[in-house]
């Protein structure tokens, strides 16, 4: 379980996170929903230890992340995480060199699944290819958790369908997935849990099937209610 407890963060004088608390379970798909600037990316960065927090606690399975934690939790940001001069196969070898949990066989499967060319230079990739490549790097690691920041942003329809398939595949089975997206209509039937964030605060966190069952509401319905009130 990823447990975020009363986390505060600011950039300069601006408050980005203002007492955020929520959990994301292992074996579940949790979606972090909010308008731009609500603090979603900062929250993912904070969980990954990529930016300091100014209060609160974050624990992965009861422990602080620590540098060994990067073998247990993978992050797919909406940026490339490798130098532009590298080729895809070089990046894969880099991952193999540095991560014990890198699964080269699976990475090669993903390469074929996404239709990536292993000799392509990262600097030349289109936005859609880059997103698939980043996802390949994240899923190629055997980790308990995987975090994704906007895996669909600025991507063509067909790439988006390919990436959506990942969410209903064995690739994420048993893992804890925490991701952010604006494509709620497309993704809502794929998520177990939705966490709504606004102005650096969690305003609602719920089990999607339970809300549909008990209230007959879609995730979008809940969002409309919450953000328009």
């Amino acid at each position, binding site marked *: 379980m990823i447990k975020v407890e009363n986390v505060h963060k600011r950039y300069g004088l601006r408050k980005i996170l203002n007492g955020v608390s929520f959990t994301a379970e292992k074996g579940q*798909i949790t979606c972090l929903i909010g308008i731009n600037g609500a603090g979603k990316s900062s929250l993912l960065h904070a969980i990954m230890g990529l930016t300091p927090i100014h209060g609160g606690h974050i624990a992965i399975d009861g422990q602080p992340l620590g540098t060994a934690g990067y073998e247990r939790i993978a992050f797919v940001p909406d940026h490339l995480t490798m130098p532009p001069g590298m080729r895809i196969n070089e990046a894969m070898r880099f991952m193999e060199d540095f991560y014990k949990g890198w699964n080269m066989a699976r990475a090669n499967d993903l390469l074929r699944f996404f239709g990536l060319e292993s000799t392509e230079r990262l600097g030349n990739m289109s936005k859609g290819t880059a997103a698939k490549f980043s996802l390949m790097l994240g899923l190629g690691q055997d980790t308990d958790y995987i975090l994704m920041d906007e895996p669909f942003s600025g991507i063509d329809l067909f790439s988006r369908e390919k990436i959506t398939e990942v969410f*209903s*595949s064995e690739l994420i089975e048993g893992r804890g997935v925490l991701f952010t997206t604006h494509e709620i209509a497309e993704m809502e*039937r794929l*998520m177990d849990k939705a966490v709504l964030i606004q102005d650096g605060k969690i305003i609602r966190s719920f089990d999607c*099937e339970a809300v*549909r069952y008990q209230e007959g509401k*879609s995730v979008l319905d809940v969002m409309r209610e919450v953000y328009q009130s």
Partner: protein
Amino acid sequence: MENEWDSVAFNSRDPVYLQVVRYFKEQIATGKLQAGQVIPSRRELGAMMKINPNTAQKAYKEMEEQQLIVTEGNSPSRITGDGAVLRTIRSELIGEAVDAFVGSVRKVKVPIDELLDLVRTKYMEEMNRQSGSDEGGTNHD
């Protein structure tokens, strides 16, 4: 077969797992899934219907509880062979549809004979059109 699974349109306000269960019931009622037929694994179902593996799991659990499917040991799940259960599914589906229909048509206050005639004509038209387009589809292939 796979194309059919793929094209299931989910609505966003009912629990996805119940929609999956309902889809199975429809397939059983129309004879597309036979008694005792092996069904896809949870994992395969998740991938085919593009749903979360947990939802697929939950749907299977629900179907097991309703005794729609049976799983023995490590062998794959099958549609139940229990005739009584299968018949209930059919009547349940028809009952539900009729309930919904009656619920909305009642407001118009149509005399029952006129209504039944209308239903008969419409239903025949719809069936003819469907079988026509089905044949057209197969001819085309």
